[in-house]
């Protein structure tokens, strides 16, 4: 980055934790998850730039996407069985 400001890694620590869990603590998973998080953040910026939406809205979308992603984990791990 070429400059040591007082906000070098703001927010990346938090993102890293999410990435670790999304990737189920497996190296390949973490790689894929980090790409996804990067996409979420970049997508958020694109939305801000091209649709003149405030950053707070992109944060809402990021949070929602993560919720659904995390919730979907259950469906991945278990199979729904309807009790007659």
């Amino acid at each position, binding site marked *: 980055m070429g400059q040591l400001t007082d906000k070098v890694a703001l927010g990346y620590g938090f993102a890293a*934790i*999410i990435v670790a869990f999304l990737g189920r603590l497996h190296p390949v998973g973490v790689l894929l998850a980090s790409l996804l998080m990067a996409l979420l953040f970049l997508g958020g910026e694109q939305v801000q730039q091209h649709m003149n939406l*405030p950053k707070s*809205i992109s944060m809402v979308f*990021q*949070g929602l996407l*993560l*919720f659904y992603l995390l*919730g979907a984990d*259950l469906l991945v791990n278990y199979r729904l069985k309807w009790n007659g």
Partner: protein
Amino acid sequence: MDSNLAQEILSATLLAGTPLIIAALGLLINERAGVLNLGAEGMMSLGAVYGFIAAFSFSSPVHGLLAGLVVGGITAVGFAFLTITLQANQVASGLALAIFGVGLAGFAGKPYESRSLPAVADWHIPFLADLPWVGVVLFQQQPMVYLSWVLFGLVWWFLYRSRSGLLLRAVGEDPGAAHAIGRSVYGVRYLAVIFGGALCGLGGACLSIFYAPMWVEGLIAGRGWIALALVVFATWRPFRVLLGAYLFGGVLIAQLFLQGSGIKVTVPAQLLSALPYLATIVVLVLISRDPRLIRQHSPASLGRPFRADE
């Protein structure tokens, strides 16, 4: 030191610590049941913005506090569903909630940015307020300070003197055992999470209605994370939460007074700003340095989802 100045500092300390105490007490109950909710920053933000909107629209701080309580609780229901029923990872879910909450609060608050509410007058407790010196500091305070003390009392009593509190702690330590004797672990955890979220929302509302009193995006400025850290450093004990919050607030206020007094201080301002965090960590770690105490007090099942059929 001038007696008046000391009173000012102590008074301001109580005020600064109160939103933290309220949120941290909620998180304490949350974590004692074994659920880690890292979304405190988001819940406090939502409580702050909707609390402010309600207080502003109804011209009543009480409506604002109730709104903060309700919004925090509702948000927590979502979180509980995700982490308890759907058994999603608690850490990641909490972080997602923090992002979501702060963002939604910023967006929802845009029409209300920088509006202000009329300041609320101090409450004078009869008789006690007339005590020399102590009376001014402790008993002529903002209502939210008394609220935080009442909540502290309730939480302490609940945890250590009530059967339900015992059940809560049991669920936090060993959910399998609690389940085996027929108790609903899910139910207890749901209630704990909702309570935790409601108090976080209340803490946020106190910030925007009494302390600031205004709403701008980013008002919470990391206080949710501080509340989370407080619970850990207080080894999940209510009184230490109180202590830690006042210590943090106290050092914060003291360093502001130091700067403003014109006394020559050779410590750089950035270090002074870090002092509250350092002091709180150091003191709390020192009083809990017995590793057995920490193991004893950290809820054993914290962060681990419970599956009823295992």
